[in-house]
């Protein structure tokens, strides 16, 4: 219980800070909406083309929006040495990791919750189906789990805006491919069974990288 109380305290602190500045949500949301609108104009009105390209467009948008958001995840902790302040507290490094994962996940899900209905409206696709929402949530969990670890790694480098995507995107390629394939089948009206194997890959990725990042995080921040 104490573990989760402290995780919630970190998440609440991040949420409160974000509510005051709206740095992450505002900039990432503007980026996301712009990309959706550009894709919408680029692909025209042919529904056949849209069904074909929509899953890729959706996940390209979310992947780059995610990079933008995760790039900011540890910046408030670096200002005035707050990460050192947290590390001097009598809490395990894992609490810091889980707290940052939960806050990043929260920000990403808020952005996706706004972007999906707009995507559904502009592309005239069933983006708000339970299937697409499940795929989106599960993929975002894995994406954020890895992204938070690499964000902590990149924040100490000079060119952190460059370092994060270079390190992070190759690692998340499997889950993005899984999400594109599963979303494509879901948007085409296929049953759960038709994309269960892709969903399995996404869940396995989530589990492996959540555990691995949880275990490795202490080494990343201490060294």
């Amino acid at each position: 219980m104490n573990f989760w109380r402290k995780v919630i305290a970190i998440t609440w602190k991040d949420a409160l800070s974000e509510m005051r500045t709206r740095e992450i949500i505002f900039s990432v949301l503007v980026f996301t909406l712009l990309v959706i609108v550009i894709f919408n104009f680029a692909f025209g009105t042919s529904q056949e083309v849209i069904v074909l390209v929509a899953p890729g467009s959706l996940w390209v948008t979310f992947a780059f929006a995610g990079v933008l958001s995760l790039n900011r995840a540890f910046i408030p902790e670096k200002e005035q040495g707050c990460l050192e302040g947290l590390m001097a507290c009598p809490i395990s490094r894992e609490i810091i990791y889980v707290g940052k994962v939960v806050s990043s996940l929260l920000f990403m899900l808020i952005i996706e919750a706004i972007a999906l209905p707009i995507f559904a409206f502009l592309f005239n696709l069933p983006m708000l189906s339970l299937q697409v929402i499940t795929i989106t949530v599960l993929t975002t969990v894995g994406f954020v789990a890895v992204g938070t670890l690499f964000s902590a790694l990149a924040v100490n480098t000079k060119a952190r805006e460059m370092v994060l995507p270079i390190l992070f995107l190759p690692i998340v390629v499997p889950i993005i491919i899984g999400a594109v394939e599963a979303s494509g089948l879901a948007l085409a009206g296929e049953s759960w069974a038709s994309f269960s194997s892709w969903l399995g890959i996404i869940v396995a990725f989530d589990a492996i990288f959540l555990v691995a990042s949880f275990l490795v995080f202490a080494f990343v921040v201490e060294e």
Partner: protein
Amino acid sequence: MGQNITSPDWVVKVTGLTKSFGNQRALRGIDLEVRPGEFIVIFGPNGAGKSTLLNVLAGIINPSSGSILIGGRSLQDNAEEVRRQIGVVSHQTFLYGNLTAYENLEFYSRMYDVPRCEERIEEVAAIVGMTSRLHDRVSTFSRGMQQRISIARALLHKPAIMLLDEPETGLDQQAIAMLWETLHADGAEKRSIILTSHNLERGFELGERLLVLDKGKIVYEVFKKDLDLDGLKTAYQQSTRVSQ
């Protein structure tokens, strides 16, 4: 909560401490003992390893080798329990600018499991003279006011040991005077303090035992009662020159 360290002889015992960052050796075999209530000042030029030493003692970074016992417990084996006994004030404030002073103190109270945290926040805010600004955002404060809230943050859990890493950096004379007044309040007589400083005059005035660190080694150590300020200045120059 802090202030329950009972070892009679020392509260901090460091043996053979080393720390390397890649090929660069920041600490090269530090041995140090700190007695309860003792005020130690560590001087040294830039890059001597002062901040690294305090970061290792605070449990922020891990040593490469050697042992650190705090209150009889190994920092490496009981990191969370030991960190509970330590308060850190650095030239960086560890405060979130977008949160108010109260929200910052409340956040750190939760991290340190401070009981009755509302009362304690009011108490430490009064000690640092910031009660009237508690609900203002930290980003609107001057550097001196931020440092006072930083001290309040470090005092929240009543630590038995205070680690002060050049806390005067960027402060004017008035703010520096306030800093030391504050640190002498709130049960400071029972608290062991390790301060790193460039300021020989101030360090000499405050410390009981004076150390000079250079290139990751303690190159000079003396009790204040055994020399005057000029003696310290001469010893500092000689010891840092010799080790170069």
